């Protein structure tokens, strides 16, 4: 049985609507098991300057799983110029045109810089990248990024790593309503219920990292997120009933025991 519609982003179809970040896992084997348990087909990796005289251990070797694609991010850059170079290096390193564009110069809240993100998206889309832009939940900015050629927009639910859930819910609703490119809710998703909530609202996918990586049992939590994301999507496609203030009986109200 085909449970949900596949999600098309760029030149690829995804059956799983849960994307995973690979940061903060205690070990590579744990990360790999969580990736497998999540059912994800897209995982992020970061780039870092090579530290000389340090043993190089290759994270990618642990992420080579059937059907799992890599999404390099630009974490650590502070401007559009740096992001463009990071993207070009990522493409060279991983042989992929896919990119999670994130430009967050402020270390306290890690909130993305909309102006630099806009400039970088324009440039990178022209260079043939599938840009998935991490941004604040700003509906106007999302439309501008769409026009600039973003393959997907990734509005945040709450600041990165906070597990606060969909603090930006009202703006996410507008973004989802208006967007012509996939909307991936990223950052702040702290519990499977948050992922389900985003999917029920009509988000095309969610990206989760911290909530899984720092859980007591990351592999079990990955499974919980897999189910919640799938559940939320099925609910969305099944079209939920309307919300109302007054009661509406689920059982017949005709008199049963007493007929007066």
């Amino acid at each position, binding site marked *: 049985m085909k449970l949900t519609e596949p999600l098309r982003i760029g030149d690829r179809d995804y059956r799983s609507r849960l994307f995973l*970040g*690979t*940061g*903060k*896992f205690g070990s590579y084997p744990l*990360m790999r098991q969580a990736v497998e348990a999540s059912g994800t087909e897209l995982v*992020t*990796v*970061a*780039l*870092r*300057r*090579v*530290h*000389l005289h340090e043993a*190089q251990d*290759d*994270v*990618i070797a642990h992420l080579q799983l059937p059907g799992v694609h*890599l999404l*390099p*991010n630009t*974490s650590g850059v502070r401007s559009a110029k740096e992001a463009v*170079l*990071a993207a*070009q*290096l*990522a493409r*060279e*390193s*991983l042989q992929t045109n896919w990119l999670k564009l994130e430009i967050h110069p402020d270390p306290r809240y890690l909130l993305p810089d909309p102006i630099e993100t806009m400039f970088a998206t324009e440039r990178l889309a022209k260079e043939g990248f599938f840009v998935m832009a991490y941004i604040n939940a700003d509906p106007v900015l999302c439309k501008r990024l769409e026009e600039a050629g973003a393959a997907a927009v990734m509005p945040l639910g709450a600041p*990165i*790593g906070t597990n606060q859930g969909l603090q930006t819910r009202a703006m996410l609703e507008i973004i989802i309503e208006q967007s012509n490119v996939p909307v991936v809710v990223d950052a702040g998703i702290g519990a499977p219920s948050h992922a389900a909530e985003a999917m029920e609202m009509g988000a095309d996918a969610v*990206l989760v*990292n*911290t909530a899984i990586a720092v859980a007591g049992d990351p592999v079990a939590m990955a499974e919980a997120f897999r189910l919640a994301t799938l559940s939320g999507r099925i609910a969305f496609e099944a079209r939920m009933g309307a919300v109302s203030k007054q009661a509406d009986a689920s059982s017949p109200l005709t008199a049963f025991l007493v007929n007066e």
Partner: protein
Amino acid sequence: MLAVEREEMIRIVLNDDELVLDQDCTVDALLKQLSMAEAERIAVAVNDNVVRRSDWSSYRLNDKDRVLMIAPIQGG
């Protein structure tokens, strides 16, 4: 003699480290010197321009070049 030696050497900055290299050192030779030539997912930029892997053996470094060498790590 010293002057001659200086002329034959170049100074570059690799990530945060200053290195002294032979004149005419290629990117490939630099990576070999660092025992990183086999590293599959290293990417290199010189003065903010990516040097593709296929060009490593022909690209000669110059004095004062800024070399950026990156590799993938875990991240969200």
